[in-house]
Structures are given as C-alpha cells and as structure tokens.
C-alpha cells in the first residue's frame, strides 16, 4: 500500500537529471578572463554596481551612494527610457522547447502586458534583466539594447519574473514552464537549459537565481495542484543538481512529519520558494521564506502546523541541510506565503550587538529573529485591521483563529490573500534604523467551495471586500512598531523600496508616480509621473562618477540622474 501511494504522487526526483544540452566544451570556469562578475565580489557589499537581486546578500536594498541626496534631489532628471518588447523580434535570439503558438491559459494569467518586475543587475555598465520568457542586456548609460533572448514556452502562469543571476560571464534565469536557462551574458546566446519542475503539475518559476560561490540557487512556485516545494543548488557550469531541499518532510518519522496527518498530505503540501533569499557569508547560511501550505485556503486534510511551509529557514549553503527554522504562520489557510525578503540586520537588541533577521510577513506580523540560531526576538502586528489570529504563543508565533478559516457562508478576513505585504522589496536603512515596507489594510470574504474531506487546489473562493488603503510604513526594527507612515490617497501599487546614504527613500504609488521620500519622517521630496506603476524594486549605481536611479514601470525602465 505504501508503495502504491508513492507510485502516483508527483515525481519528486524528476529534476535530478543532467542538462539537455552539454555545457561548453572547454572546462574553463565562469567563462574565461575579463569576467563580468567574479562571485567573490558578492561577498562585499556592492557600491557602484548592482550585482545580485537585492543589490547585496543582506537584502537591505540600501546603497552607500550619496551623490544624489536630499540637497539636490530636486535636480534629478530623466536620463533615458528603455521600452522592452517581449516576444520574438528582428534580432531576437530564440530558444525554448515550446510551440510557435504558446498555450493560452498561462498568458491569460500575465495580468495584461509586460510588467518589469525584475531588478536588473548592473555590472560594467550593462543592465541585465528578465521577464517571463525574455531576457535582455541594455547599456546602463544610454538605455540602448545590446541583446534580447526569447524562450518559446510550453505553458505555466506568466505572472512575473524577478530577474537574473550572473556567475562569471554566465547569466541564469528561470521560465514559467520551469526551466533554468543559462546564457552567455556577453552575447545573449544560450549555453544550456535544464528542467527543474513539471509545468503540467502547475509549477511555474519566477525567482531571480542568487549566485553564492559556485551555487546557483533555484526555487519555484505553483499553488494550483497540491505539489511540494523545493529549493535547489545547481552547478553554474553544467546546470547539474548539487543539492535539493524539500520544503516538507518526505516520509513519516522524518523531522517535521509530526506536523502533518499523513505522508500524502506532506507530499502534496506546497511551501513554494518563489523569491530570492538572503545570505550570511560568515555563517554560511542561506535564508529563505517559504510559501503557503496546500490545499491553499482550507486546512482540511492537513491538520497540524505543516512544516516547513510559511517559515523562515536557514540552510547550510554547501549541503542544503536545514540548520534552523521559524514558522511565521503555523497552519496557514489564507495563502499567506512567508516569502517576503528576510533582511539581515547587524545591530543591537536590548543593548547587546546581535546578528538579526527581520521579515514583515504577508500575514501582517513583523518578526525579528537571531539569525545565528533562529531565536525569536520580536513579533509585532504592522497593520491595524488584521483580525485572524488569537494572539501569539510563547515562541511569538501567531495562533490562527479557527473561526477565520474559509466557511461555506464566508468569513471576513484581514488582510486578504494578497497580504499585508507581498513580494515587492522592503528596505532597511542602517542610518535611520528603520525597516520600510509597503503595507495593505485589506479585507476579503473566504468561501469554502470544496467540502470533500480531502479538498484539493485552493478549495475556496475569495471575494475582495473593501479596505483601509495602502500605506508606506517605517518600522523600528527593534520593536516592529510603526514610526511613521504615509497613506497613498489614490491607493498603492506593488513597488519595491530603495534607501540610500543620500538620505533618500525611493518607491512608487498606485498612481504611476515614482517618489523620493525622506526616510527619517516620510516627507515627500521629489516625484516623477511615469507611464505605468512602478513594478519592481528601484536600484542605483554609479558610472563615470555619475549616480543613476533606475526603476521599472510597466514595460519600461526609467533612468534618472542629476542634471549636468
């Protein structure tokens, strides 16, 4: 019976195969000389460049650049606009295994038109970024395209792509149909692609690969068909698997299995890894927030805490073994992935220096942990409307109120499934000591639609209710309490946040404005109206002594700099 049970579950080892195409014939590492990015550079915080998704491994999205600052920000002006054209064009390099006419369903879920959600990497004067099925290189001084690569897809939800990773001269990005594709960053030509998951099981992949040493960190997403999540480290030369960490225990008796009723539930338990993590090079720990358990919006059939879903986990970078975990939403039933960036903060707590980690989680709570061992330090609500928990337990974990789990006749829950915060990047400014997050005070009705004792998929329907709006918040990292907040009068968008040593905070509202705030008090210092809402996390870099601020809005990148 046990064997039979194993037989028809999603194939968990399918990804452990070699690349379809061979690596370059020569055995040179990283692509020879004049490397675009020596991975060792990533061990030091970046200054002039933007070499990894969050700018550096800490996830702070704080830049030490200060040429653009509070005194001169009003002189900031447009340097260039680059409008990206997805799909095959005249000079496009085409790859992928799909048909010429792509499946309709996945594109229906692309939210209308190209949205640049990636944070471009900027190295040696060139920006590298991706969108679902597309990757580009663009001159960071002029906004002119150098190359464009297009991947013919076989399907998958085309909701977004967070960007690329670079190791030496090799560039990596993930596709909605679950391939890891490696390009030569100098030319855009494909080196190889490897399949990491089965798109037919509704996995779809959006993270920007993070490069750590010779590990390419690869995660995936997919909430639709009750599949297990995983995180992989892959070889940058070949794409071969180095290790794979499943976000749930694999069998009864394994650590964590006591938090599931049976093997079937844990093997179909979700816990996706759809955001890039952060990394402490001294501790050699990779930190990642995991997604919600499945079925998504009911707890029937998966009674228990459901480890390691909705958790912040620390993995040994060389082995993929879990070193510690902290579950921020035990037994989640509202789609509140805990995938928000776990920001690494070195500071003091109760008067003592500590290595910490902070997350403003989708469930509406801010968490502060000791990142050496996962010790809980702080839990604090960061939206006032939240109504789903019965407080927190001795470990600071929220206690879900069972009355707020989906019912046939509906329950009113705040926040809605989009959450109090979501993937748009938060930021931590070490100079103000404030943690910045875009927050949403929303409500939804959750209706249970699948009354089977073994529900599947989402198992519930959500209908949006009203809300109290969207607020940019500055939280005291030591307490999680809101020090200042700015409510967007026309509603918020899904913009990430950048802070700089120029005492500036950059983000966007839901009315197509790109805005600079004073990070100390929330005062607006500058803004520009764009042709779309800010869709990514703004970034900054310096070339030839000139600082640029680059932001993605709709299908375009906008670069700003000081008027000369």
């Amino acid at each position, binding site marked *: 019976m046990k064997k039979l049970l194993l037989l028809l579950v999603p194939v968990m080892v399918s990804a452990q195969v070699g690349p379809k195409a061979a690596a370059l014939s020569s055995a040179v590492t990283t692509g020879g000389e004049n490397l675009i990015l020596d991975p060792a550079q990533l061990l030091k915080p970046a200054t002039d460049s933007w070499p990894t998704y969050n700018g550096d491994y800490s996830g702070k999205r704080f830049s030490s650049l200060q040429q653009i600052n509070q005194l001169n920000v009003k002189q900031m002006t447009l340097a260039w606009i680059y409008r990206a054209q997805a799909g095959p064009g005249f000079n496009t390099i085409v790859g992928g295994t799909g048909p010429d006419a792509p499946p309709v369903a996945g594109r229906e879920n692309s939210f209308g038109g190209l949205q640049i959600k990636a944070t471009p990497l900027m190295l040696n004067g060139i920006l590298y970024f991706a969108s679902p099925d597309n990757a580009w290189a663009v001159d960071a001084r002029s906004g002119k395209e150098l190359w464009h690569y297009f991947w013919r897809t076989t399907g998958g939800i085309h909701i977004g792509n967070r960007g690329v990773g670079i190791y030496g001269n090799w560039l990596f990005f993930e596709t909605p149909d679950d391939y890891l594709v490696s390009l030569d960053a100098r030319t855009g030509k494909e080196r190889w692609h490897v399949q990491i998951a089965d798109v037919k099981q509704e996995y779809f992949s959006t993270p920007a690969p993070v490069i750590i040493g010779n590990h390419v960190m690869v995660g995936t997403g997919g909430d639709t068909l009750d599949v297990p999540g995983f995180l992989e480290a892959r070889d940058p030369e070949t794409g071969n698997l180095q290790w794979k960490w499943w976000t749930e225990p694999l069998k009864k008796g394994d650590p964590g299995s006591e938090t599931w009723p049976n093997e079937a539930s844990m093997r179909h338990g979700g816990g996706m890894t759809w955001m890039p993590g952060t990394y402490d090079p001294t501790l050699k720990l990779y930190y990642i927030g995991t997604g919600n358990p499945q079925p998504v919006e009911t707890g029937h059939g998966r009674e228990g805490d459901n480890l390691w879903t909705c958790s912040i986990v620390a993995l040994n970078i060389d082995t993929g073994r879990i070193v510690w975990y902290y579950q921020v939403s035990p037994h989640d039933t509202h789609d509140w992935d805990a995938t928000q960036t776990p920001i690494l903060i070195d500071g003091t707590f109760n008067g003592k220096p500590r290595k910490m980690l902070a997350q403003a989680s989708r469930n509406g709570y801010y968490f502060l942990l000791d990142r050496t061992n996962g010790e809980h330090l702080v839990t604090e609500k960061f939206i006032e409307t939240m109504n789903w928990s019965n407080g927190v337990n001795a470990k600071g974990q929220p206690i879900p109120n069972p009355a707020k789990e989906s019912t046939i006749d509906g329950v009113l829950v705040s926040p809605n499934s989009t959450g109090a915060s979501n993937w748009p990047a938060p930021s931590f400014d070490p100079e103000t000591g404030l943690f910045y997050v875009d927050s949403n005070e929303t409500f939804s009705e959750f209706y249970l639609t699948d009354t089977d004792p073994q529900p599947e998929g989402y198992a519930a329907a959500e209908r949006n209710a009203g809300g109290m709006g969207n607020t940019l918040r500055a939280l005291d990292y030591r307490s999680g309490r809101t020090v200042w907040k700015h409510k967007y009068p*026309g509603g918020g968008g899904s913009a990430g946040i950048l802070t700089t040593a120029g005492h500036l905070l950059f983000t966007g*509202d839901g009315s197509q404005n790109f805005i600079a705030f004073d990070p100390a008090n929330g005062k607006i210092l500058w803004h520009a109206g764009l042709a779309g809402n800010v869709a990514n996390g703004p970034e900054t870099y310096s070339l030839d002594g000139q600082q640029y601020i680059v932001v993605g809005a709709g299908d375009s990148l906008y670069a700003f700099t000081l008027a000369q």
Partner: protein
Amino acid sequence: MFRQHRVIMTAMLLSTALAAQDQPKMRRPGGGAGMDYRDYDAATIERGKSAFVANCGFCHGANARGGESGPDLVRSAVVIDDENGNLIMPIVHGGRQTQGMPKVDVSEKQLADIVAFLHEGVRAAAERGTYKVLNIVTGNAKAGEAYFIGAGKCATCHSVTGDLKGIGAKYDPVALQGRIVMPVGGRPGRRNSSPIEVTVTLSAGKVVTGTLERIDDFTVALTDAAGEFRSFARHGETPKVVLKDPVQAHFDMLPKYTDADIHNLTAYLVTLK
C-alpha cells in the same frame, strides 16, 4: 503611535492591482491555471464517473481522491502528465502487480470515458476561477433585520421600502453579501454608482466642488457641476482637499462586523423580494 487615520479614500481595490503570485483572473480561459485544459462534454464525464465508481472506486474512492488502498488520482503525476490515456491506459490494462494494483477489465470506450473523468477532476481543482460558491444563506433573517435597524446602522442610509426594495430579487445571495462588504465596483471616479464628492479650497478661498476623477499626492481631478474636467496640483496640504464618500460607512464597518452579523444581514436582504 498607532493613531488610526481616517480613511479618506474608500475603494482601494489594491488586490487587483497588486499583481502578486496570488490572484489570477477569475474566468476561463485559464481560470487561474497555467495550462490549457481540455473541455469534455458533460455526458462523457458522467459516463466516465459511473465507470470509474464501478471499476476503480473501491480502491481509489468514488471521486478518485484516494480510498482504502489506492492513492489519490487527481493529484497523480501520471494522470496530470497523461495525454488522451497514453499513460493511464497501460496501467489500467496491465496493472501494477508489484504495487498491488490488478489489471482492470474495461473496454477502450469505457476507459476513454474514465480518462475524461480524471482529467476533468484535475481541471476542476486547477482552475479556481471556476470554483462555485455554495449556499451561503445560513444566517437568521430576524437577527439580520434587527441588525439592519440597530447596531448595523444600515437604516441610517438605506430603506427596505426605498432604495433596497426588491434587492433580494436583484442580486443573488453571493452578490448581495459581496455588496455589503464591498459596496462599489471599480476605482475612485470610475465607479458605476456612488461617486465620491470632492471639495477643493483654493488659496484665494475659492471653492471648487465636483465628482472625484482621481487623486494622488500630487494632483486631484474632478468633474464639476457643469460637466467640465478640472485638475489641480497638490503641494502637501495646499489646496485643501476634502472627500466625501457616500459609502464610507460600509468601510468603517469592516473592522466591526462579526461574520454572524454579515450572514444574518444577507439572510434578511435575501427575503426582500
């Protein structure tokens, strides 16, 4: 520190704007899934279900979600990856002796129906945009009426013999309950009903009023009584802008409602035919 700011803008439908990994569109094609699922006709699915129950249900459960001795087939990679029976048929006809599954003697035609039934099960789970909300009228209409005229303060603005006359016939219960917690559709200024009134006091003391078209930190735009579109630059608190939203009370109630209040109200409004 946690001063609850008054909500000056109501219809913050941010969840539709926040294109996160969370809320695919609620309609077919796609239905919230990433793959194109085949549509089988209802008769085929029904035949397949009968054949499945008769031949497979004993082990795999009547709805194919697993039984005493057989696994859940809706979540099965074999079923999900199967195309027109290419993976399922050999297993059914050949059995999997080592895993304890016998050969099953069903005709090609019956098996094709069973395959359709299984694929429909996968599609129905995957396409959440097609999930059907069930019977939500569980509340107590009497209690709902008392809430309407009492604690809910609904009667302050509404009348069951006036604007809400026949409301139970106009909307189905799910829509009715939806209108209680989300009284408007669309974004500010583009709502089909209940426009937001805006008053802009210019520095010279000149006052302009109208219907709000849009507002952000930098501009406010309105249509005035003459039907003219007008917009004004905003610099912090200048000019003074006051919004009046006729459905603000609904939003103010959100943190106060109990779920029973909402269910009772729905049960009451359903009776207003």
